[in-house]
């Protein structure tokens, strides 16, 4: 595959009023994207919670962590609906669909899980968030202990879930396993801070010389006000003005589109794998042999406590 067309779908919490409304909205969006040759679509994190909320379970007007716990403990029924809906749409439109995320109880803890569906209608895989923000630890979430890369006919895909976007270890581990495109569904508390996006996936893209789709849920979710944002990123050398953004197009001057104002249409871009050795790119294996191969420091620093 020399190039692939990808898209991020904007989604705000207020869009999802029922399962049927979500299905119709998503089907309409995917139909448009499929017509335009898009092969891979990313939804933001939290889609499982939006669908759960839309079913109006009792007592859901509490706090977000309480809602998550409720969702995770009742996941069975909701999860099969979630799977069926997204598998059906992925198959109908012949698209790889990273359908956002939900919360599941695994190994006795609640974990934030993102899911990827293939054009055959199958579940390609799921990825748990592997690092937690302070507040997420306080909520009692658990961490995943695996980072998977899936070989598809689009290329090798990896997922960076939620807060993992701000942990460069995650991108590095995925890219060392050959990931070519990173999918990053997230939920970021508002108010919007433009430079936050540059500290997360944008840095991982530049360090690892890889493509990434970044999609943050927007709107009000239970008691959380979220800053919505979408972007498709590449190494600076592979973007029109050297900004590292394929979409939205950012002026070369040091400004960013105002967060919270979502584009009217889905964000689309073409990822060109032919330009993998563009000018100025550092090789992925750009490491000091002694420091890393002899493991002088790497295991040590991660053994040391906080």
């Amino acid at each position, binding site marked *: 595959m020399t190039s692939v067309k990808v898209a991020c779908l904007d989604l705000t919490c207020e869009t999802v009023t029922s399962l049927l409304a979500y299905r119709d909205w998503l089907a309409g969006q995917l139909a448009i994207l499929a017509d335009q040759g898009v092969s891979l679509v990313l939804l933001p994190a939290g889609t499982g919670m939006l669908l759960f909320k839309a079913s109006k379970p009792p007592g859901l007007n509490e706090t977000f962590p309480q809602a998550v716990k409720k969702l995770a403990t009742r996941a069975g029924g909701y999860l099969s609906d979630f799977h069926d809906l997204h598998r059906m749409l992925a198959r109908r439109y012949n698209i790889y669909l990273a359908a956002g995320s939900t919360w599941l109880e695994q190994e006795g803890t609640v974990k934030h899980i993102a899911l990827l569906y293939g054009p055959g209608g199958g579940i390609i895989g799921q990825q748990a968030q*592997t*690092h*937690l*923000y*302070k*507040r997420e*630890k306080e909520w009692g979430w658990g*961490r*995943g*202990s*695996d*980072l998977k890369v899936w070989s598809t006919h689009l290329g090798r895909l990896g997922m960076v879930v939620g*807060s993992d976007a*701000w*942990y*460069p*270890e995650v991108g*590095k*581990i995925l890219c*060392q*396993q050959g990931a070519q495109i990173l999918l990053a569904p997230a939920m970021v508390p508002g108010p919007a*801070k433009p*430079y*936050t996006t*540059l*500290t997360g996936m*944008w*840095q991982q893209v*530049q*360090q690892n010389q890889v493509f990434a789709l970044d999609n943050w849920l927007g709107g009000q979710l239970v008691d959380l006000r979220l800053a919505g944002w979408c972007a498709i990123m590449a190494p*600076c050398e592979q973007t029109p*003005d*050297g*900004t*590292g953004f394929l979409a939205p197009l950012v002026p*070369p001057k*040091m400004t960013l589109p105002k967060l919270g104002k979502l584009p009217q249409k889905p964000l689309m871009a073409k990822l060109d794998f032919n330009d993998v050795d563009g000018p*100025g790119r*550092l*090789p*992925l*294996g*750009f*490491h*000091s*042999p*002694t*420091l*890393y*191969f002899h*493991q*002088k*420091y*790497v*295991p040590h*620093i*991660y*053994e*040391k406590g*906080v």
Partner: protein
Amino acid sequence: MLWTDYLKESLWWRYMVLLCRPARLRRYLTRKKIGRYPPQQRVDRHRVRVAAVQVKVKMVNDPLEYVDQMFSLTRGAVHGGAQMIVFPEYNFVQLLGLWPIASKKRGATDLRSVFPISGADIMLKDIFACLSPISQAVYFVTFSELARRFTTYIMAGSLITTDPEGKVVNASHLFGPDGTLIGRQVKTHLAPVENDWGLSAGNDLHFYTTPLGNLALPSCTETSCFELFRQLAWHGAEIALFPTAYHWDYTDWKALRGIWGRVQESAVYGIKSVPVGEGPLNLRFAGRSAIYAPLALTPKGDGILAQAASFDEEEIVLANLDLEALHAYREQHQAGDINRELYEKYMPGAYKQIPTPA
């Protein structure tokens, strides 16, 4: 080689030794009448004032021109209140102008054409090794004296020099307010062009505890990878003194993927110093020196405490660092999680799969 060439070379070296002798450089600085700068009695950890110097590269015909430039910049920084000053990478290239043939071949793009040396196996590192005694002497005396006379910490930028084992390395040096050399860091991640030159990489990281904070001296390409900064932060570094040199088409966007990003990931302060102007071999340097902090510790939330206004002029960038606020930020910082199980599973194994760089 003809006997006349031997004679010329011998006379030239003797002339260089005379020109660059420490006493001459010290006498020059004494005539500057620098005055007394008493040492700071008490350091306020809420207000450590630092400077990043943006140096315009000017090839010199006399080492006193180099001393003069460094003196002016140091004085400017100290008069701005700086207690610690950071100079850029390759803060010695000006001295290559001392070689007479270099001044005649200012537009040369190949160092070998400037310093013709026979021998198929000669690399540029050998040329640097040959020049090292002179550049090292001027560099060390200059910054030792400036640090002592102005009673300030100076990270003198980096110098390509020969280490005690005979390897040619790119090393940064930290001088204390009494003029002693208190720190040295050999660059551990060489740029591709430095590999081509034949330089050797360092294999250790050093950290320095001073009254102005815990310091580390990463340089240039060492900010391409987050791991090194993780190590700095875990070893207690509070401030990264960062000499670098951009000899590609500089843009603010490309610069963001260096120390700015590492400061955000690892919650340290970063003081970045760059050279600007035209160096030898048609190397053009451009960039903006700056002082960075985590987003939440900066007035505009952009991670920048202070930044040079231009990318091609000499400037001194000054800012105050609050070390106590940094520690408070680290305590409250939402990130900072560690997943040991993940790292044990992937980190050593993943790195073993990388082919050894040529």
